[in-house]
């Protein structure tokens, strides 16, 4: 029997409730397509994203994790995304330091009006992660099996 070998990555997108989640909604109502393997998790603000969430997603078999939030300056809670920006910068740098492919993580600012940007970002990110292949380095068999 022939097995279809095409690799479809699992991508987790953390989207801020006020901008990016609405942006994803807009891209849907505009009938723009983005890969079905992007799993969106809604969070109240990009700074709700605990670095642990990213690592846990990888541990449990995600191949790429992307954080989408309001543009800096537009945060619903005024300053949340500024804090998130510092945290994510340091976390990504640390992952890079440990030799994890840095392209597996990304932060993108998507407003509620940028449905097209949301779809384009997801398509691009999915293509990047597909090229990288399966996430082996951060997977934890204790959680997945």
């Amino acid at each position, binding site marked *: 029997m022939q097995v279809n070998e095409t690799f479809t990555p699992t991508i987790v997108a953390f989207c801020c409730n006020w901008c990016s989640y609405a942006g994803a909604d807009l891209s849907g109502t505009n009938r723009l397509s983005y890969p079905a393997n992007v799993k969106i998790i809604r969070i109240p603000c990009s700074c709700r994203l605990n670095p642990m969430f990213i690592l846990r997603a990888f541990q449990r078999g995600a191949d790429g994790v992307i954080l989408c939030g309001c543009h800096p300056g537009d945060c619903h809670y005024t300053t949340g995304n500024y804090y998130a920006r*510092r945290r994510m910068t*340091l976390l*990504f740098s640390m992952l890079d330091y440990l*030799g*994890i492919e840095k392209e597996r993580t990304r932060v993108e600012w998507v407003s509620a009006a940028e449905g097209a940007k949301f779809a384009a970002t997801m398509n691009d990110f999915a293509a990047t992660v597909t090229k990288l292949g399966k996430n082996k380095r951060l997977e934890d068999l204790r959680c997945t*099996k």
Partner: protein
Amino acid sequence: MHEMIKAKAIELLESGCVNRVLGWKAGEFFYDLTPAVFTTREEIERDFVYSVFSAANLSKYLIAESRKEGKVAAFLKPCDSYSFQQLLKEHRIWRDNVYVVGIACDGMCDMDVIRDKGVKGVTAVHQDGENLKLETLYGTATMPKSDALPERCVHCKSHKVVVFDEMLGENGEENPDSGRFDEVERIEAMTPDERFAFWRKELSRCIRCNACRNVCPACSCEKCVFDNDKSGVAQKAAASDFEENNFHIIRAFHVASRCTDCGECSRVCPQKIPLHLLNRKFIRDINELYGTYQAGADMDTKPPLMDFTKGDAEPSVVYGRGGKQ
């Protein structure tokens, strides 16, 4: 120095200034000094030890000690004083209940380093100026003290006690050119695969004893995120050799911008994992991206992760760096 500190401990106790003293006593071995609380003169005379192995950072114990009845005296070395001030800043220690005696420090020796230099069967170590006199089962030996220092003391960031009520010995200076980021830079210059291989080799030895977390003065939460029996990894042996990465990344991240770089995590690690290199990476990134910052050096500045500016670098700055490709 040993006699001076002991006399000071007795003096503080007998004058009624404090009702107990936090110091060190011998543990299982003479080079394995353990933090201890002394309440009587007899105890101090019998058990109190200050030697080249008094490396343990006493500041974390003050979180609990300062909440008890009466005042406690504590001996703090420069590293410990940074941790102490950082904890004060976080309102974790009740300052009024602590009498801090600052002690000058020119590095704390490590028995493993002495053994690595080829001296075996050491039964006693005495400091004699710049040198160490070692008594061993096979006779006596001498070595320069600088040869017996662990990495954190070789690249000492500061000889300055930043907060004290009283100072024993001469207070030192900060040392900005300590070269403490040399090793981090060396790792950064590797290719991603080399870096991964390096860290996999180091972290594969982790036995998750949690000693690094328990000893860290910055890790002072009452309830820790890792004490979670629903995590899916609790009570399970690691299935591959990099699976403890989550613990180590998050441990370092939780203390990022509050870590004073005292190096206790690496000192207590039974598997000799260079954990301080993870913390130093964060310190180095913070210095580079958000301006030089030393946790615990003062009482007023905001830790960089509790602060921001509108012009901060975007996370994509990481894509542009990271060694050879």
